[in-house]
């Protein structure tokens, strides 16, 4: 079973709203792809879990250069003046994207709760989840740099009431 297209549209719209409002950065959509398992090569992954009516994660993937660009824009700091602010900034981006997405879903179904963000930085790692998981990755271009937001849903789609 795949993730409903309207849910991915909500996720992409949420991501665009956060980037435009907080960083004044416009994102260009690239066609979404279903992901059967892991992707390698992303260097920064900021995730926020949610639970309640739905269970899963929202993950923001980017290169370290793109993450530093995002952090600088959010904080109003030149990239070369950033110290260790980037991980917290990426966590906050994931928090806002997941929160905005959750709010859009809450308009049509019971609200889920979101957890505090987790940020992983590395040169070659992948993520795997046990059990019935649906994953979809929504790629964007941000000023020529690739970033992506991924939705991971745990369990099958609930039947309509």
């Amino acid at each position, binding site marked *: 079973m795949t993730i409903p297209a309207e849910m991915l549209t909500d996720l992409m719209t949420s991501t665009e*709203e*956060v980037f435009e*409002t*907080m960083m004044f950065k416009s994102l260009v959509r690239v066609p979404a792809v279903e992901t059967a398992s892991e992707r390698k090569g992303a260097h920064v992954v900021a995730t926020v879990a949610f639970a309640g009516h739905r269970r899963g994660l929202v993950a923001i993937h980017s290169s370290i250069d793109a993450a530093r660009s995002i*952090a600088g824009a*959010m*904080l*109003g700091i030149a990239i070369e003046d950033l110290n260790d*602010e980037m991980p*917290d*900034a990426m*966590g*906050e981006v994931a*928090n*806002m994207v*997941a*929160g*905005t997405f*959750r*709010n859009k879903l*809450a308009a049509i179904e019971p*609200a889920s709760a*979101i*957890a*505090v963000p987790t940020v992983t930085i590395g040169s070659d790692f992948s993520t795997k989840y046990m059990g019935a998981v649906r994953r979809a990755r929504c790629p964007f271009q941000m000023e020529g740099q690739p970033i992506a937001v991924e939705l991971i849903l745990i369990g099958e789609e609930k039947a309509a009431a």
Partner: protein
Amino acid sequence: MRFLIVDDSSTMRRIIINTLNKLGYKDFHEAGNGREGVDRLATTPVDMVITDWNMPEMSGIDFIKAVRANEATRALPVLMVTTNAAEDDIKEALRAGVNNYVVKPFTPDTIKEKIQAALKA
């Protein structure tokens, strides 16, 4: 006007301070969660509190309840800045005693408008 910014994200504290700076405010204190916020209020008088909701150790909701339970801080204007925007979330925050509510992501104009509304409340 003195602000206490309570948020576990140093990024969000900085964004809020940058925003308040743009609006002409210059006096800020910071706390990393509700418990630190309570401790800071015991020693540092402020004119308004801006707090997150989801924080470790003491949440924004529990922090606001503590503010309202203390005679010295009972009347302090409190603005909540959070991603939680479901109708039930807003009702819960209002029950806890928040004066106004800002949903992230936000613009400086939104913060300005909500501060003014919270001060009038």
